[in-house]
């Protein structure tokens, strides 16, 4: 009785001649890579916009404080009640 696994070697020799179906993946690959690249850029864009917004808030707060500190009468005009 011939060995079953040796028999497989003979079948494999025939099987190796099979031609695989043709594929055409170039366009899909490049499209997927572009989509991945765009997805990676989105968080960075959100972070950049957030940073600009925060910078604007701090700039306005800083200007207000600067005005208060450099003008000694600013607080007087802001807090002195009207007499009379």
């Amino acid at each position, binding site marked *: *009785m*011939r*060995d*079953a*696994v*040796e*028999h*497989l*070697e*003979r*079948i*494999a020799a*025939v*099987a*190796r*001649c*099979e*031609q*695989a*179906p*043709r*594929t*055409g*993946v*170039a366009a*899909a*690959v*490049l499209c*997927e*890579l572009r989509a*991945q690249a765009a997805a990676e850029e989105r968080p960075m864009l959100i972070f950049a916009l957030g940073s600009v917004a925060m910078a604007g808030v701090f700039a306005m707060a800083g200007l207000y404080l600067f005005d208060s500190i450099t003008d000694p009468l600013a607080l007087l005009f802001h807090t002195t009640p009207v007499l009379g």
Partner: protein
Amino acid sequence: MAHELTLGWEHLAVAGLVAREDADDIGLSLAGDEAAFGRLIDRYEGLIGQQMWRFTRDRATHEELVQEVFVQAYLSLKGFRGQAPFEHWLRRIATRTGYRFWQEAAKRRGREAPLDALPAEPSVDPPGTASEAAEYLFVLLETLAPQDRLVLTLHYFEQLDTQEIADRMGWSRTLVKVRAHRARAKLRRQLEAAGYGG
């Protein structure tokens, strides 16, 4: 800029390890040239398609696997050191992609697929069609655990020896031998129980 980057890969072509056209297109791809990577795909798609057909007999899945191989290749391209031909590096990625596919399928299905019924044994003397033989072998190997299945698939379909399989997967040669032995023993039992090969 692209020309300078291409020149940076020339040493690979000069050493004879990497074909000149591959070295040029790799350099250009890394510089962001889509057409260059497209050329690499066109050059190797047939080869990789042939290899991935051993991992599935479904055409849609086959196309997805080939696509996945080239996406992974692009994402790993910076790591290509040119210590072997580009084809070898690509085949390694392809094998690991296919193996991962089997592992995920095995997790969903359970470790090994039961052998419900063998397809008709193909004729070898005279030989039947290559597709019949490939289908038969594929169904038989599908009953094995992914790691055992991979070892015999690479042996039967790509005629790799144990050292080549070990190099392809980063396994030890001893491990490959053990898996091959275990897989063949299981196949032998199944075939003899079914009355085949006699």
